[in-house]
């Protein structure tokens, strides 16, 4: 399997005060970690206040991906940027919720238009509309994400 080039312009782009991240499908764990580091670098570079993780290309989202979203949001938050998730496919949403994976403190929007409206307004939207639910953080053990991509994890 070829490595996904995460530096290609189509993956991470800047739009106004928002960083657009088109999350590729079929990422391995080490690629997910690389993507997260790249996102943090780009937040710093562009001084982005918002990060849009666009999942419209992703058709399989397991619990590791959930940890990725959550940890990215926490890290971006420490840099003053807010993470918004968009483009989750219906099938992916159904599976995430039934798996028991929902995302606390993560705002989700339907598409780029809604994300832009949110970033331009400079504030969170109505939580009852945008929030998708709450993850049981303990059950997911979020803090463990980095370990999975350290030595011992699959080399790609």
């Amino acid at each position, binding site marked *: 399997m070829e490595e996904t080039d995460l530096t290609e312009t189509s993956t991470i782009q800047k739009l106004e005060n928002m960083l657009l991240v088109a999350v590729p499908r079929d990422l391995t764990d080490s690629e997910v970690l690389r993507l997260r580091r790249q996102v943090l670098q780009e937040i710093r570079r562009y001084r982005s206040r918002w990060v849009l993780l666009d999942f419209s290309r992703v058709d399989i989202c*397991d*619990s590791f991906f959930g940890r990725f979203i959550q940890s990215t949001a926490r890290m971006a938050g420490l840099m003053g940027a807010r993470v918004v998730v968009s483009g989750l496919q219906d*099938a992916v949403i*159904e599976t995430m919720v039934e*798996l028991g*994976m929902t995302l606390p403190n993560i705002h989700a929007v339907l598409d780029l238009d809604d994300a832009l409206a949110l970033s331009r307004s400079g504030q969170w939207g109505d939580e009852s509309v945008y929030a998708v639910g709450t993850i049981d953080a303990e*059950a997911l*053990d979020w803090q463990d994400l980095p370990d999975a991509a350290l030595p011992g994890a699959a080399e790609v």
Partner: protein
Amino acid sequence: MEERRFPISNIVDVVRARRSGLEMALKMGFHQAEANKVAVVISELGRNIEQYAGSGTITVLAHDKYIEIIAEDEGPGIPDVERVLAGGYTTSRGMGLGISGSRRLMDEFEIRSVVGKGTRIRAVKRLC
């Protein structure tokens, strides 16, 4: 009946197996959301093999009315299966949701595990 066997020893193997499982389920006529669940269960079970046993296999069988996933390894086994099935059981690499969540996504879910010998998990999703 179509059968595909995937040796699992790293995450790339897991990514391949779940993609292939998704395609099999769609070909059988599963709705996208149901096929997605099959793929995620393959992913979670594959991760467990890679993390805890190091290597093993996942076999996906397409029957007339259902799809069957069998995950087998000769790893350390699960000391407390009930606790893992109940969810919230995490180790240092955090597996709580993998097994308990997978069980919720499937119609049948069985674990046979012997400490020191290995684990065999069988999961079934029915076409409806």
